[in-house]
């Protein structure tokens, strides 16, 4: 997919800066995500990928720079407007982040509670929950507690929860970390299916080369807080730059 087109990006970061004391994590990071594309951001552990994605959804405050989602600058939005915008975004957390005091059904119901207008009333909730679980192949787990699920199943349920409001943008924070290779492949395949079924735009934060190879339309390498390199997987893997090569060894 050719993504550097004239179309407006659905998500745009400009000159994003974030420091923790003297530790500069993001030092003018830029990113544009276009409609329907899968953009992978790769970086070493501790390079600031998770900080970047948390700034993007307002979980952390950036020191400076602009964050625009669907044309709206999230740094100036009030709580209510931000919550409304967040319904357009699905977020898959690194550790799944399922509410462990709730069943799978309650976990999926949780995002629907405050946004019944988006689903034509809460009476449709059960149907939507079952549909979301069927999409990830876990309809039978509806009444189980998160502790009763395997790591891969938890990731699938988390994916179903992220998708339940049918978001236009999906953010994945290390979607395959902590999973065995087979389950990781299943999750990657699921992500591709979701992309095709819902036509979402996806931003994937990872250091898993296999994941990037399969899913990326375009990639950005985050090194020293900046976009060190960008391009397709093929372009980057053929690069002679030692810092870029280090990612693909």
């Amino acid at each position, binding site marked *: 997919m050719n993504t550097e087109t004239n179309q407006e990006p659905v998500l745009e970061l400009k000159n994003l800066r974030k420091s923790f004391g003297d530790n500069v994590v993001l030092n003018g990071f830029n990113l544009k995500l276009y409609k329907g594309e899968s953009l992978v951001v790769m970086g070493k552990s501790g390079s600031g990928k998770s900080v970047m994605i948390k700034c993007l959804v307002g*979980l952390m405050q950036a020191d400076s720079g602009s964050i625009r989602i669907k044309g709206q600058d999230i740094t100036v939005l009030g709580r209510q407007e931000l*919550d409304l915008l*967040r319904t357009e975004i699905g977020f898959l957390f690194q550790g799944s*982040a399922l509410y*462990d005091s709730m069943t799978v059904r309650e976990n999926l119901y*949780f995002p629907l*509670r405050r946004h019944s207008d988006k689903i034509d009333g809460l009476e449709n909730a059960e149907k939507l929950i079952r549909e979301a679980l069927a999409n990830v192949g876990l309809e039978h787990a509806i009444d189980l507690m998160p502790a009763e699920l395997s790591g891969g199943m938890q990731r699938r349920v988390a994916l179903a*929860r992220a998708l339940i409001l049918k978001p236009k943008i999906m953010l994945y924070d290390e979607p395959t970390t902590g999973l065995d290779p087979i389950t990781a492949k299943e999750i990657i395949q699921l992500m591709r299916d979701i992309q095709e079924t819902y036509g979402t735009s996806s931003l994937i934060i990872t250091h898993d080369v296999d994941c990037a190879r399969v899913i990326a339309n375009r990639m950005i390498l985050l090194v020293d807080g900046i976009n060190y390199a960008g391009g397709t997987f093929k372009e980057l893997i053929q690069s002679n730059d030692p810092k870029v090569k280090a990612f693909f060894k």
Partner: protein
Amino acid sequence: METNSRILEKVKSFFTEVGEVAFFAIRFFKEVFTKPFETGEMLRQCYNMGNRSLLLVGVTGFILGLVFTLQSRPTLMEFGAQSWMPSMVSISIIREIGPVITALICAGRIGSGIGAELGSMRVTEQIDAMEVSGTNPFKYLVVTRIVATTLMLPLLVIFGDAIALIASSFVEHLKGAVSFQLYFNQVFNALKFSDIIPATIKSFFFGFAIGLIGCYKGYYCNKGTVGVGEASNAAVVYTSMLLFVIDFIAVFVSDIFFEI
């Protein structure tokens, strides 16, 4: 020199934390009166904290009443004042021992539970997930819990006091052959509103302190699983200290208004 700077650093960090807790409390008061009200979650918390603490508070109250009466009896008998037993036990328990002991037990059971639960939710990104899903986690997790502890503690105190008095009446019945009716007649004759009202008001503040410190420690827990343990432990330690400070202030204020 190094010791001085370390002490100064500790004093500074103590006052910083006191300031942060104050801001946390201000945020609670701002959010508690704004929509949406998480009524369902609040009722669930009330049930969890109230109903599930009944046994512990009941058993403690029973033993307290029993021991207090057994220990005081010989001394009162020495002065020929055993007929004062119901009055003394009821005033001591209702004014002071009942609220303080119940609050300390709840600080251990409820406060540490809140600290550990919110702490583990923080480190496993569940609070972040809530925020991203368009729910205000402060309102859903913190406001509901503080409201629940504030409302439930006075009820638990009343329950604990009642059980302690019943236990005391058993001892008096068995040891002094005082009928239950006579015992409770003396109890209610001795008690005044100025004994009950300050103790009840104090219990609301105790409940608020338990919820506030537990939630504060858990909500800002950020050192992984070690941090969860620290949050749980600190919630109990700081709440217990705060309870005594509140108790001192409450007695001081009661003295002004009710001349106790």
